[in-house]
């Protein structure tokens, strides 16, 4: 069994960053509220900060020791906030600017994972520009021919399954593409891999027990993610030992390939042959009460406050980001 002992943190003044103007604001606020309560119970001095025009000033003047990022979506996950935190010299949880921005862009990230030898589904990326200026619509028919159906159409950036459609017939593609463009400048169209959904959290480079995901109805979409009870989870996942090892190796491989730090969550599909495929890596995973990383931590006997405490300890250990620390 994977072990990832919890670390205990020095009492600290922690800024919990959540909210912002991203489309995942609500999910982020839920993560932030839960983390703040847990850290307060552990004796830290916690301040919740929304991400707004006062952010930099507040960070500079707030007397904080570090920032815990419970941000999801653009600005929070794509390296923007990380840049600011480095400028003000505040240690923070999660990956640095480069890793954040690489992971945020799914087409780039998928390319890096493939280059690292990890199995990712066949895919194609199409930008709005390709349609507007280069007549990409004439090539849409080729997508189904090249990748087969069903297909997964999703925005090239963003999480929580927002804007994601599973397309069973090539004629449904244009609608799904237009819908995904509402969330991002480009869409990623992937071959649909049938199988069991498994999420593997990695904490400080070590895998936590994989979590198996069974939505009670339909796909693991927004409602299935955030309605308590709408999805059944098994932790640890009911996998053959060698399949479990392959899943864990894949999650750690992705964490390393992207240069993640502290915590990440890899979303995988284990196909009918028992082969895991990497769908995505989330470098600022959700911490709500229906989120996967807390479930995985629990399966490793790490309760939610332990998990939060560990994230604080990791940020304390690593200090302000090396390349950017103020003189």
């Amino acid at each position, binding site marked *: 069994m994977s072990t990832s002992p919890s670390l205990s943190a020095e009492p600290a003044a922690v800024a919990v960053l959540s909210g912002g103007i991203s489309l995942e604001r*609500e999910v982020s606020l839920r993560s932030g509220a839960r983390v703040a309560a847990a850290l307060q119970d552990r004796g830290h001095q916690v301040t919740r900060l929304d991400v707004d025009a006062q952010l930099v000033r507040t960070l500079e003047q707030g007397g904080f020791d570090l920032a815990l990022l419970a941000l999801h979506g653009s600005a929070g996950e794509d390296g923007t906030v990380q840049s600011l935190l480095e400028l003000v010299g505040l240690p923070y949880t999660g990956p640095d600017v480069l890793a954040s921005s690489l992971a945020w862009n799914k087409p780039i990230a998928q390319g890096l994972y493939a280059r690292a030898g990890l199995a990712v589904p066949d895919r194609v990326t199409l930008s709005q520009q390709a349609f507007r200026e280069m007549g990409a619509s004439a090539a849409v028919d080729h997508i189904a021919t090249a990748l087969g159906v069903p297909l997964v159409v999703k925005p090239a950036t963003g999480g929580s399954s927002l804007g994601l459609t599973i397309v069973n017939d090539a004629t449904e593609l*244009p609608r799904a*593409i*237009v819908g995904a*463009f*509402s969330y991002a400048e480009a869409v990623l169209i992937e071959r649909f891999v049938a199988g069991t959904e498994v999420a593997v959290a990695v904490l400080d480079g070590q895998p936590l027990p994989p979590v198996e995901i069974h939505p009670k109805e339909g796909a693991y979409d927004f409602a299935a993610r955030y309605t*308590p*009870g709408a999805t*059944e989870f*098994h932790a640890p996942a009911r996998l053959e030992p060698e399949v479990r090892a392959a899943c864990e190796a894949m999650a750690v491989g992705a964490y390393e390939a992207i240069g993640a730090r502290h915590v990440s969550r890899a979303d995988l599909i284990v196909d009918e042959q028992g082969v895991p495929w990497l769908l995505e890596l989330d470098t600022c995973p959700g911490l709500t009460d229906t989120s996967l990383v807390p479930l995985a931590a629990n399966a490793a006997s790490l309760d939610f406050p332990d998990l939060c405490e560990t994230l604080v300890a990791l940020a304390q250990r690593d200090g302000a980001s090396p390349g950017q620390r103020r003189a």
Partner: protein
Amino acid sequence: MLLDTDPYLTRYAERVRGMSASEIRALFAVASRPEVVSFAGGMPDTSALDMEAVEAVVAQVIRDSGATALQYGGGQGRAPLRELLVEVMEHEGVPAHADELLITVGGQQALELIAKCFLDPGDVVLAEGPTYVGGIGAMTSHQADVRHVPMDAEGMRIDLLEEALDGLAREGRRAEYVYTIPNHQNPAGVSLSVERRHRLAEVAERHDLLIVEDNPYGLLDFAGETFPSLRQLVPDRVVYVGTVSKTIAPGLRTGWIAAPGPIRDKLVLLREAADLCPSNLTQMIVESWLRTQPWREQIKRFAAVYHEKSVAMLDALATEMPEGVDWTVPSGAFYVWLTVPDGIDTSDLLAKAISHRVAYVPGRGFYADGAGGDHARLCFSYPEVARIGEGISRLGELLHEEIELVAAVYGDDAPQVRPRRTGPATGVGG
């Protein structure tokens, strides 16, 4: 180990099973940020109230009758308030006796109590399509089968209502009631024509129908006109719902039901089971407001504010919207109902709208059956006049881009863009 994120799941009543998290609701968390011009929430402009008068009224209630104001009250609501609300109804030409009234916590509690009173699981209600999202919620939380009757610029299509009633009769079923918002309807922004009110009354007699007449907006006609109420036409067949939310303020949470005696008695018992009684404090504030303040003039002031805002929105729509986009032209209240070209889904588009810093309510929210993807509700009552043009300009830019994008993505299969109609849209429904 099997983990359930909701260990109470097996304990819930059947009626909460379908309740789930929603993407759209999550997006509204962003829409309330100040950067976004939000045409989403149907909120009155409470800044148009005379706050010094409000302060005086509240202080006077506490000074003169503080102990009573903070005490429990009767389940039907205070008699003095009911008498004053009869005057408010009279002002609109709606007849009522104080004894027929039941004070509720806003119009929403009224809709919930009525649904609870009449609906068993699977019962059919006929409602305008589109209709008020909170009305749908009240009915579906009692597991009703809400079916829509299409509308046009004159409100509900009574011919199609009859068709639906005949269809139900053929199935050996009936509609428990017809839910309608006849005046300045939410979300369509149109009113039921006088001729159709008479036809609806006839149909009600012929089919032995009960009508729930929800009237939050009747006094907010821009020209100060009022229309005959259904309660006036067929009083024994109407359960009437009123509210002070749009004529005074929604924070008072004061609404009412006017119903025939036997129905009123049942509703009083249901309300006592729900929350015992309405707040004496807010009831007495409303009483004092209606007794001491020039409330008729205040309502006129509200109507003038909303009229000005509607003009700002309609002017902006006329200059900013691309070909193929239609909208209704309201003669009162808060709403414009927008119809977008084929290929655009307003639920999908909301994320992009919010990125463009403008928000609306996607049309699907106003249908119980998943229709409405090509509509959006724009509420002009709350944003400042100066920001309405900016918001519509953002929305226009977005729709221009989206129409181009749809054409580019669909290529040769692109849907045809309808030519622009002028004046009120002739069709409202999906």
